[in-house]
């Protein structure tokens, strides 16, 4: 079975209006740039996007917001995006804000076949509204459920044609968790190699989780805050 597709346009085939997508990355670090650009080009609409952040105005998911392709964002932090704030305040965009660890764990749960779990994060806050609260050993927790997404789109450093992935440094972040969680998982990689070229002991995402893989091109890897010594 061949998992390799030629480019982002081919990878996103089947993503249609109204679907729920997971998109890897933290800030602009480790985002699937090629796939996002292809989604912008495709014009697909009414998406629900699960992603820790919403990009910046002119990069990353921000580009999809510009095209008003996103109906709802599920994120933990969206502070870097003025268009986002405008659409939110005008009511064009729904947003569900979640604790970052809860966001990560709900991805992981989906990929691990765990429908629900308890976490202390958000107890006593707005986040807990409508959620079951339970005490374990004298501490309060809220029940959170696994995410349900149609596609997960991740960016890796290296991948092989069997779908095995390796991430680099902090661009790993949500990527391996989302890779586990999609009904269909798309991985774009900087280097695509043959099976056997990656050390089996150091694979971050085993190929079983990846359905489509392609070699991305022209990575910009924009930096939000270049801080130097």
């Amino acid at each position, binding site marked *: 079975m061949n998992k390799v597709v030629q480019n982002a346009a081919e990878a996103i085939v089947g993503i249609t209006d109204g679907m729920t997508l997971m998109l890897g990355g*933290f*800030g*602009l*670090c*480790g985002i699937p740039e090629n796939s996002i650009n292809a989604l912008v080009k495709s014009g697909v609409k009414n998406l629900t996007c699960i992603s*820790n952040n919403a990009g910046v105005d002119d990069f990353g998911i921000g580009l999809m917001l510009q095209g008003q392709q996103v109906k709802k964002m599920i*994120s*933990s*932090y*969206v*502070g*870097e995006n003025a268009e986002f*704030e405008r659409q*939110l*305040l005008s009511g064009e965009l729904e*947003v569900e*804000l*979640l*604790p*970052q*660890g*809860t*966001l*990560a*764990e709900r*991805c*992981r749960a989906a990929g691990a076949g765990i429908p629900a779990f308890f*976490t*202390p*994060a*958000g*107890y*006593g*806050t*707005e*986040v807990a509204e409508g959620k079951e609260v339970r005490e374990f050993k004298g501490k309060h927790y809220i029940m959170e459920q696994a995410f349900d997404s149609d596609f997960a789109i991740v960016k890796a*450093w290296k991948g092989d044609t069997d779908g095995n992935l390796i*991430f*680099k*440094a*902090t*661009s*790993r*972040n*949500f*990527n*391996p*968790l989302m890779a586990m969680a999609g009904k269909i998982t798309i991985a774009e990689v900087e280097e695509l190699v043959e099976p056997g070229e990656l050390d089996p002991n150091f694979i*971050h995402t085993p190929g079983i989780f990846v359905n489509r893989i392609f070699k991305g091109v022209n990575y910009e*890897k*924009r*930096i*939000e*805050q*270049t*801080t*130097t*010594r």
Partner: protein
Amino acid sequence: MLNKEQIAQRIAKELEDGFYVNLGIGIPTLVANYIPTGVSVTLQSENGLLGMGPFPTLENVDADLINAGKQTITTLPGSSFFDSATSFGMIRSGRVDLTVLGAMEVNDEGDIANWKIPGKMVKGMGGAMDLVASAKNIIVAMQHTNRAGDSKLLKELSLPVTGLGCVKKVVSNLGVFEITERGFELKERAPGVSVEEIQQATEGRLVVEGEIPEIVGIWE
């Protein structure tokens, strides 16, 4: 009164050898600049790095290596990278010894608000709710009053809460406060700041017992 650097400097005195520490954005980040000599701490960045090093030189900037504030950084010998679930696993399971956070408001029961101003600021909580729900030891670094001069050390929060009963200590520009059942216990005053000034600037229950020393050993 303490400036931001001095608040960070005072908090740095709380660091103990071997601590794993998570520093929030803003003043907390500055704490890393004042780690006492002889004390070895490991900085956790919740986006997936343990053992955060200093900012890189310009030629070593790597877009794939950032901290939770999205700043480019470096690693140190002994560093490790991991995914976000593992990162918050560390946090929730109490492996992080000390968390330093900024806050918009703190009340005298240790509740904290720092993620939302309804109708005005919608940025999100990021990792703050996980941190405050889980960390064993949370120190808040903050200005004592807002721009209008109103106290940010309150009886009751006016803003949406981030976590309940979690803040153990506040270091503000005016002093150092331990939060106990009795409220904000004033432990140290910023140099030149009187107990009366602190009382005036604190809306929540304030406990002043005995002579309150000035903060020493910083801004040398």
